């Protein structure tokens, strides 16, 4: 029910929204919770386990009950707290965790079964038969218990991540936060003021009272105006600081567009990482629930929330309100309601010595021992001494005192301290370096205390930053906070502690009785504190009940661990921009468009995109294109973009010495103008990479790595250089991106290459020379990865696309053309050249038949480790070729024909396969136990996944041109 003349909502801006398919009206400035209460909607959800009817309990982000699904065009967001979600025109949301309608939830049957569903029920009941758990029990239980549902689709909404830096981060904008921000701001420090709500002011917006003689709200407006005008202060509203991390880093979640209709490019949320050497925690306190029988019905609400709805939103949550509270401060709830014309049926105060004169009936030394009303409270039962009586009410405001919001102070393993005086946990000073808790978050419960501690903390920080500031302290109430702990009302029946996970005092006592006496064990046994509210409303009360049940004090019992995030953070916000193709950068070749123009499907090679094959009209499968491209290279000439290979420019007097150190073979003896194949080992002696290095000048080499290991090799070189030979005269830098390089391979390769260079060159095999390529300074290498006479032409990257297109056009006239990765792979398998499919990290130089490449005369990285027993010899799997008449597969395992196929008889495995049009057979490269001694034998290839069982011939890995005559032609 809306109350005229009250609240900070904008009554000139009505909005319409939808809840469970029904349209409602609210105002700009309303939360979904306040707007629903204004429309007298009390029932908003069903509880987690028992499907009990639930209503709005709080007015903040700690809300355990009022969780809804918000439905957008591109996403469906579950577990949205109605107390946080602002209403806007067109907001569409629905209640969750129900079967049927909210009013008649079929799963409410669970509530009648509750005697059987106590804590630990599942663990005890669904033990037998064991196999039924995954298939039967778990799906049923998961269907019955739970909260919101997911759409099952990708969330294609816009999300954002950002970084911020400041001198002082102020978390919360109640009186202490505003005072801290004002002080630090006036001192000239860079300040970020983060406020969870859309409006600044904290409890000052919800509670009556004055500061410096003016209403709290007016003082807030004045301070906010001053802060807004300061260029060094940044106000971040709708931003919750979610975690405190190392080195003064804080996580924060900003609701950017969640309070508006979706717009293109407008982020829904932004996940901030804020770095601040100093932080003020002004997060206030959370009011706590009192446990008594059936204290979870819609209409039962925190007393402070009732004041918030009344004063901030102009809503009376009931027509006949009762108050059950044990502090003097909570009495304001009743007084303010009455002042607004709302009937207060009774005040029930458990303190026998409490003040008993109000404008309504007051029962001191009394307790609420029960409630009634199916879908919302209609009356309560009160016990006073030996007498019990009923009170008609549609809203019970309750308060068991306050818990300082200390979460962030505990995020770096700090434990809070129990304060007997406040009957609450307070932060341990210095638990998070640089973070100081002030105001109610630190147990200063009066407005004066908040203002004073906020100012003091900011002043100290300003001093630490070398600044001075004088700020007058405004006058405000300084009523002492007196409380005697009151957690639960003794009596029969279920008294709720954790509303979100349906945990009652009984469950906690049962946990203690069954031996789960540690608070961490109790938590896991009962699931208390494990719902979206993470126990904000129930942790302290639950451990107090546990302490009582185990006969210990609260400090001995201790708390469970507070972990980030403080409020739920959507994964979409933390991973903003990282979905689908945003996962990693994409690297494109200069020939990319030319390849796509020819219809080539692109495949990923590391981060690169490379053409798989170049289809021609009439070709139905990739195999047809691949076979044609292989033939083309063997008969005429083919062009492939090989720019993805890593290229490292190495210079200095010790360049040769450095290469000798990182390669197994010798490069210092390589003549200028020549290229040599090299093998590189890791420190543990296994093969790291292979490639060629060219000597461009006396003190200048160019190393080539595989595409996959380009970054890895660069890192390895950096490590070796820095760790072992930092004083050598050698420097190196990646030039992978600087050169576009194209393989020209086939019998007509020389004719084609020579057509592009200004003076035709006669280059020996494994030679390199600088050339002018169509007027551009480039390099010509005579190297081959195909087994044919092959050249690689390199030009500065800007000319890459032009050279590729021109090369391909001319090649086509010669009967050739471009070839893709599939053909490239077949060509190298025919030639027995290895890739990282073979040098996969578990093979040695000996395994691949290159032990002779480990030079005897010099040391190199990995040489000593490679000599270890077990890394060489006939017991190792050695590289061989395989030949078969029918399809074979990489990943298949090898066996001796006629033996059983199982793990113990395994003889090796296949790493690469392809159909060779040249040999008209299936070829493979494989690692076979003592393989080199078994050439000519037959092996049985078995692939259970693909259903293959093929007899293959073991061959030398080089099938094509074993003498290398073509290469050297």
């Amino acid at each position, binding site marked *: 029910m809306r109350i005229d003349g009250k609240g900070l909502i904008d009554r000139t801006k009505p909005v319409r929204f939808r809840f469970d398919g029904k349209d409602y009206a609210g105002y700009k400035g309303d939360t979904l919770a306040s707007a629903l209460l204004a429309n007298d909607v009390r029932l908003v959800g069903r509880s987690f386990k028992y499907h009990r009817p639930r209503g709005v309990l709080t007015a903040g982000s700690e809300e355990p009950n009022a969780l809804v699904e918000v439905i957008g065009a591109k996403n469906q967001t579950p577990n949205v707290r109605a107390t946080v979600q602002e209403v806007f025109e067109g907001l569409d949301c629905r209640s969750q965790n129900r079967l049927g309608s909210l009013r008649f939830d079929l799963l409410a049957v669970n509530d009648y079964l509750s005697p059987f569903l106590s804590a630990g029920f599942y663990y005890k009941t669904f033990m037998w038969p064991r196999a039924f758990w995954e298939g039967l029990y778990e799906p049923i239980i998961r269907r019955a218990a739970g909260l919101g549902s997911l759409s099952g689709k990708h969330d294609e909404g816009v999300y954002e991540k950002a970084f911020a830096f400041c001198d002082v981060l102020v978390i919360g904008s109640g009186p202490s936060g505003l005072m801290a921000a004002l002080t630090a701001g006036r001192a000239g420090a860079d300040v970020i003021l983060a406020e969870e709500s859309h409006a600044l002011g904290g409890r000052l917006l919800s509670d009556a009272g004055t500061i410096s003689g003016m209403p709290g709200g007016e003082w807030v407006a004045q301070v906010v105006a001053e802060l807004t005008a300061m260029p060094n202060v940044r106000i971040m509203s709708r931003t919750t600081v979610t975690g405190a991390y190392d080195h003064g880093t804080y996580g924060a979640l900003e609701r950017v567009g969640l309070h508006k209709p979706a*717009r293109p490019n407008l982020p829904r949320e932004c996940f901030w990482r804020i770095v601040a050497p100093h932080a003020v925690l002004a997060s206030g306190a959370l009011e706590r629930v009192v446990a008594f029988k059936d204290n979870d019905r819609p209409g039962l609400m925190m007393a402070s929330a009732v004041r918030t709805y009344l004063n901030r939103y102009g809503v009376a949550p009931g027509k006949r309100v009762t108050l059950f509270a044990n502090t003097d401060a909570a009495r304001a709830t009743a007084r303010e309601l009455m002042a607004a014309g709302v009937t207060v049926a009774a005040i029930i105060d458990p303190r026998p010595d409490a003040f008993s004169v109000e404008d309504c009936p007051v029962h001191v030394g009394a307790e609420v021992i029960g409630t009634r009303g199916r879908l919302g409270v209609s009356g309560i039962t009160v016990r006073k001494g030996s007498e019990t009586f009923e009170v008609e009410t549609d809203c019970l405001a309750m308060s068991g005192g306050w818990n300082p919001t200390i979460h962030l102070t505990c995020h770096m393993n700090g434990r809070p301290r129990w304060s007997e005086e406040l009957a609450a946990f307070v932060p341990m000073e210095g638990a998070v370096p640089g973070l100081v808790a002030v105001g109610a978050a630190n147990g200063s419960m009066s407005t004066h205390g908040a203002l004073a501690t906020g100012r003091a903390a900011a002043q100290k920080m300003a001093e630490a930053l070398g600044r001075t500031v004088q700020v007058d302290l405004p006058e405000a109430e300084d009523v002492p906070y007196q409380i005697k702990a009151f957690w639960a009302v003794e009596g029969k029946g279920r008294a709720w502690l954790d509303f979100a996970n349906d945990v009652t005092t009984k469950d906690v006592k049962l946990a203690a009785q069954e031996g789960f006496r540690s608070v961490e064990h109790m938590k896991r046994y009962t699931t208390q504190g494990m719902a979206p509210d993470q126990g904000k409303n129930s942790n302290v009360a639950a451990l107090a009940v546990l302490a009582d049940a185990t006969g210990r004090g609260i400090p001995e019992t201790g708390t469970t661990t507070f972990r980030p995030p403080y409020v739920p953070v959507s994964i979409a916000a933390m991973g903003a921009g990282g979905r689908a193709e945003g996962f990693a950068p994409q690297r494109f070749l200069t020939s990319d468009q030319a390849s796509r123009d020819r219809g080539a499907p692109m495949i990923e090679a590391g981060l690169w995109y490379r053409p798989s094959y170049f289809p021609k009209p009439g070709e139905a499968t990739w195999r047809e294109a691949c076979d044609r491209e292989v033939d083309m290279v063997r008969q005429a000439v083919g062009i492939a973009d090989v720019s993805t290979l890593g290229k490292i420019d190495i210079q200095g007097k010790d360049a040769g010495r450095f290469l000798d150190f990182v390669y197994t073979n010798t490069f210092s003896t390589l003549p200028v103008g020549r290229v040599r194949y090299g093998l590189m080992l890791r420190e543990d002696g296994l093969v790291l990479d292979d490639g060629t290095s060219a000597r461009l000048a006396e003190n200048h080499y160019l190393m080539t790595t595989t595409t996959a290991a380009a970054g890895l090799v660069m890192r390895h070189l950096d490590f070796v250089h820095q760790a072992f030979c930092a004083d050598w005269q050698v420097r190196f830098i990646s*030039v992978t991106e600087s050169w576009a390089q194209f393989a020209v391979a086939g019998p007509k390769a020389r004719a084609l290459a020579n057509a592009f260079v200004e003076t035709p060159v006669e280059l020996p095999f494994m030679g390199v020379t600088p050339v002018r390529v169509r007027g551009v300074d480039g390099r010509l290498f005579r190297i081959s990865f195909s087994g044919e006479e092959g050249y690689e032409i390199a030009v500065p990257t800007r000319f890459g696309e*032009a050279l590729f297109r021109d090369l391909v056009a001319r090649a086509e006239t010669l009967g050739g053309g471009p070839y893709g990765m599939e053909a490239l792979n077949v060509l190298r398998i025919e030639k027995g050249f290895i890739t990282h499919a073979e040098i996969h990290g578990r093979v040695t130089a000996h395994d691949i038949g290159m032990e002779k490449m480990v030079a005897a005369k010099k040391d190199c990285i990995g040489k000593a480790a490679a000599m270890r027993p077990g890394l060489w010899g006939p017991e190792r799997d050695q590289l061989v070729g395989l030949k078969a008449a029918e399809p074979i597969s990489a990943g298949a395992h090898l066996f001796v024909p006629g033996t059983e196929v199982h793990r113990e008889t395994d003889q090796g495995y296949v790493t690469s396969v392809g159909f060779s049009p040249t040999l008209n057979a299936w070829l493979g490269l494989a690692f076979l136990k003592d393989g080199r001694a078994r050439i000519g034998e037959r092996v049985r290839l078995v692939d259970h996944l693909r259903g293959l069982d093929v007899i293959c011939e073991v061959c030398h890995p080089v099938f094509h041109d074993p003498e290398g005559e073509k290469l050297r032609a």
Partner: protein
Amino acid sequence: MPELIAKSALDGRSLTLGGVTLAEVAIGPITSVAVLPGGAKAVAKGLKALGLTFPAPNTFTERKGARIVWTGRDQAFVLGVDCPTMEGAAITDQSDGWAVLAVSGVAAVDVLVRLVPLDLRLGAFPVGTAVRSGLNHMNAVILRTGDYAFEVMVFRSMARTAWHELETTISMVAARAGVKI
């Protein structure tokens, strides 16, 4: 005159939205100067001919169209002018390896704080700062060329991703400011 057609990574693309301009810029030659052990003196002499001095870590300096950017320990890039070989250093042409994107305008810093994990406040990152850092998940060299102007150097092959990420971020920042897109 080369017969091959030269192309930059992004064909000199540019866009302006919400007070931010993003443009691929041609900065001319890029040369890595890696000082060899004991070569500092000789390099200082070599750079003097260009009117430059070897920059302090995380800085760059400019003189008459020539710019020298610190890019790592004992390493700097000379930008905008041809850099001759010099004693005491390994000289490597990097001109084609990088795409350079200029991000400028009053909201430029709001865009970059969404992609760069560094303190970009003017006091901490003044004009003349150059860092090797990340632009979201790619390596980049980031320079502050003015109070409201930055240049971002990324590997040429990743230029399209860098453009996409900057463009997306510019759009989001503009949408926050209420710019109709």
